[in-house]
């Protein structure tokens, strides 16, 4: 027992230490929430955020995306990630905020399908890099052929969540992409007149496998068949740093010839995806707090017109009905609706039958595109895809797509395989690599009775087979289980839609497999028959003293005969 006790705090002393916590500081401490829990995942998350931004920008600007991802190991545990795109570029004034301010962006406030949602990702990657290496995020961007390009280096002031510009220069720069060599011959570089390049140096680790950058990009290529993607990873030669990367590392040590080490995921479709439209919130999807905020912010004069203007699918009649149900004056001033009244309004809105939200805010990949994407990145002899009609959960429109690629029976491997199928999960065209077990998509796949479609399936698990299953959810608001966006929450509406799509694919799969089985059976019968027919002919030849020519004639007839009768039993 210490005779001197620490003095208890008083309200005043506590008050002195109470102050604002900036979001930046919060996420700095809780970086696992954003996907920076370990060096391996940090590398992936940085690549993912940059690529997602590039794809969103290109899709929004109606540009067929061309993206180059380069990961260079600069020290044992230090990597530089650069992502270059041919997007519309970013105006100079916005660059610092986009890359060095958390919760800043264009996507959070609107209801429209996009890859990014919150405006955290790329700034968080920059902040993580800054924290672990002290280096700035380097951005180069050019918006129009005539304009100059900007080179900007920024850091984030974590306490104030504000960008700090360290360098701001006009340079002569334009994006240049280096495709992979074709048959050992270097390809022509591809130039673009506009685009953005972001480079972040960070502490990271590179590991191959199902949760690697390589896998992420390969899946991106599947689900974005309109994307032309170039990728290169350069590891240090030091064998202590990486196990056996000799060839690649040797190249890194010496100055590299252009094109060396690049891998290109080729573009498979030339059409741009449909541009999703922005929609207003649907009354059934709004929460009470949001409703109160919307009433405060509205530009409408009356409650009724506020309902009509600010929400989708609320007609004049529906607005009238909501007001009556809530016992409110349709001509009341929206901002004057009190807390108690807003609750009545909220209930009335939820109890009124309304049309479903419009679905042109969604941009599904499309069945043909899914098949094209799978075909170019997955070996198989059967491909199918289903795009379901849009559905609604909690007032949010969403759409489910499922694709299946089945590996052929050849390759010397067992046709059935004894590994579970590979499940590729996507949300708004972004691959989900972590937390598969917690995801509604995994649950839906395991919940389908695959035995009915001819696949083996341990109870309550993924089916067994040499197949790739792709599940995509498109929505204006994807319900992730956490901020790091790795797993979809288990909404019954969503699980049901996924299940229906999987079952449709299962039916097609089973038709294909039984056709394949019949084919194999037929081939087996053919080879069995051709094993014995020569003996039959030889026997006849021996008994009747036939010539070789006669024997061949008999054999030919027999072969045709058995083929003609389709080898029927009997």
């Amino acid at each position, binding site marked *: 027992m210490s005779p001197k006790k620490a003095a208890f705090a008083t309200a005043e002393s506590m008050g002195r230490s109470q102050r604002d916590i900036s979001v930046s500081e919060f996420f700095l401490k809780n970086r696992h929430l954003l996907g920076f829990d370990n060096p391996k995942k940090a590398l992936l998350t940085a690549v993912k955020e940059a690529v997602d931004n590039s794809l969103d920008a290109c899709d929004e600007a109606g540009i067929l995306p061309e993206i180059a991802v380069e990961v260079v190991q600069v020290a044992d545990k230090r990597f530089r990630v650069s992502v270059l795109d041919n997007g519309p570029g970013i105006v100079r004034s916005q660059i610092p905020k986009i890359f060095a301010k958390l919760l800043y962006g264009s996507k959070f406030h609107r209801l429209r399908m996009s890859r990014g949602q919150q405006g955290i990702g790329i700034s968080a990657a920059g902040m993580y890099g800054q924290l672990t290496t002290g280096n700035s995020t380097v951005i180069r961007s050019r918006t129009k052929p005539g304009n100059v390009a900007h080179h900007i280096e920024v850091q984030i002031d974590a306490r104030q969540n504000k960008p700090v510009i360290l360098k701001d220069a006009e340079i002569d720069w334009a994006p240049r992409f280096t495709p992979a060599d074709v048959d050992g011959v270097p390809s022509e570089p591809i130039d673009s007149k506009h685009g953005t390049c972001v480079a972040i140096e960070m502490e990271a680790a590179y590991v191959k496998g199902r949760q690697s950058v390589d896998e992420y990009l390969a899946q991106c290529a599947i689900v974005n068949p309109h994307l032309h993607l170039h990728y290169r990873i350069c590891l240090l030669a030091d064998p202590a740093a990486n196990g056996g990367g000799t060839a690649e590392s040797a190249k890194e040590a010496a100055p590299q010839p252009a094109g060396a080490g690049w891998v290109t995921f080729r573009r498979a479709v030339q059409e741009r995806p449909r541009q999703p439209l922005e929609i207003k919130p649907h009354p059934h999807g709004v929460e009470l707090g949001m409703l109160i905020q919307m009433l405060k912010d509205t530009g409408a004069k009356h409650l009724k017109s506020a309902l009509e203007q600010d929400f989708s699918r609320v007609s004049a009649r529906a607005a009238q009905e909501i007001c009556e149900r809530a016992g409110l004056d349709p001509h009341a001033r929206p901002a004057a609706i009190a807390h108690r009244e807003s609750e009545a309004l909220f209930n009335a809105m939820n109890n009124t039958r309304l049309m479903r939200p419009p679905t042109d805010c969604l941009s599904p990949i499309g069945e043909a595109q899914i098949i094209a994407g799978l075909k170019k990145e997955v070996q198989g002899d059967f491909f199918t895809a289903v795009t379901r009609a849009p559905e609604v959960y909690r007032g949010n429109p969403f759409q489910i797509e499922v694709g299946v690629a089945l590996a052929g029976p050849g390759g010397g491997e067992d046709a059935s395989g004894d590994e579970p199928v590979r499940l590729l999960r996507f949300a708004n065209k972004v691959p989900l690599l972590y937390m598969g077990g917690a995801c509604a998509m995994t649950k839906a796949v395991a919940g389908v009775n695959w035995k009915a479609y001819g696949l083996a399936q341990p109870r309550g698990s993924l089916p067994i087979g040499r197949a790739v299953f792709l599940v995509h959810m498109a929505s204006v608001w994807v319900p992730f289980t956490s901020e790091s966006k790795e797993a979809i929450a288990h909404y019954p509406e969503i699980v049901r839609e996924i299940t229906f799509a999987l079952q449709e694919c299962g039916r097609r799969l089973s038709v294909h497999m039984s056709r394949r089985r019949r084919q194999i059976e037929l081939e087996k019968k053919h080879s069995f028959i051709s*094993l014995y027919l020569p003996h039959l002919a030889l026997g006849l030849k*021996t*008994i*009747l003293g036939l010539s070789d020519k006669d024997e061949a004639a*008999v054999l030919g007839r027999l072969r045709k005969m058995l083929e003609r009768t389709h080898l029927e039993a009997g």
Partner: protein
Amino acid sequence: MPGKRRNKGEADGGGKTTDMREAASRREASERIRDIASGIHADIVKRNARPSMKFPIRSLSNVRYDLKRGHFEILNRMSTRTLSYNTVKTFAQSMRLLAATKVDLLDKNDIAGKREIYYNSKSWGECRFDEQPESDSLLDDMEAMLGINREQLGYIPEERGGEVAGPLVVIDRNPASGETVRIDCERLGTGAWSIPSKVEHLRFESSAEFILVIETASLFQRLVHHQYYRKARCVLIAMSGVPTRACRRFIRRLADDKKLPVLAFTDGDPYGYCNIYRTLKVGSGQAAHINRFFCVPQAQYLGVTPQDIIDYKLEDATHPLEDVDVKRARDALKNDPFIRHHKEWQQALNHMLEMKVRVEQQAFAKHGLNFVLDHYLPDKLKRRTFLP
């Protein structure tokens, strides 16, 4: 079948005519195979149809008890094997078997055992037989399809044909030199003469009054040991179970030739009645297509009958009927055309089923080792209470 002609040939007596007759039968068999192959060839090349082979169905369900001839006669129900995925292997194997039979056996005047032809097939590639029962079954098919028994095709059976002792001289010939060989079955000391696999060429001289056919070799030896054949003036033949084709044919030829009655002495159980004796007298369902050669219609059943158990007080020397025995008896009562024709046999089988016991030939030893030859056989022969 040229049974009469054969008898005539034997009457002529020369070894040379036998050879000529055998050569003719081989030529005939060879022609039959050629005909069948031509038919199949024509199906394929001229009619452009899937070829087929036809066989009489070989089972008890496709035989009739022919009273006049005294044996099971095959009916005309046929099974057809048409070339298809399911039959292509058997079809090809049959074809190669026919070819081998014609070229290697008939045309070259050679012989082969069933097991030899099974091993011979090992050089046929995919057509080889994996197990001997496969080739045996195809041999039976071929025999039925050709209507020629396999001995005439050059196949020799592996099983022993039976043993003979008694006042009988068998006139055989040396297979190499053709020289006549006389075997006196009364002068074989303690042994006996074995019936060869081919018996068509044999001729006989005998002073016996009947033929006694015995199921077990041990009882046969007791009778030989005490020279029972002298006392009873009979030829003793041991079958050792169901008589082989050669054994049946031998008994038939001897009985026909010397006009001797045939008496059968087996264990008193359903197997002895329905399998051993029935097969001896009228042939089998399995070999129905050739029963006309391999049966002894003049045979009669001496014992042991169910009534003998009572008459000779053997009740305490019996064994209870087992399930298989009961099943066999019931099956015969229901399906066997021979049993169904003879009331006496139905009574005997029903009697046995009531008594629920079976009895062995050796059971008479209860009254003394030689009771069977001192009392039972003379008694039965005197009373002549035989079953048909």
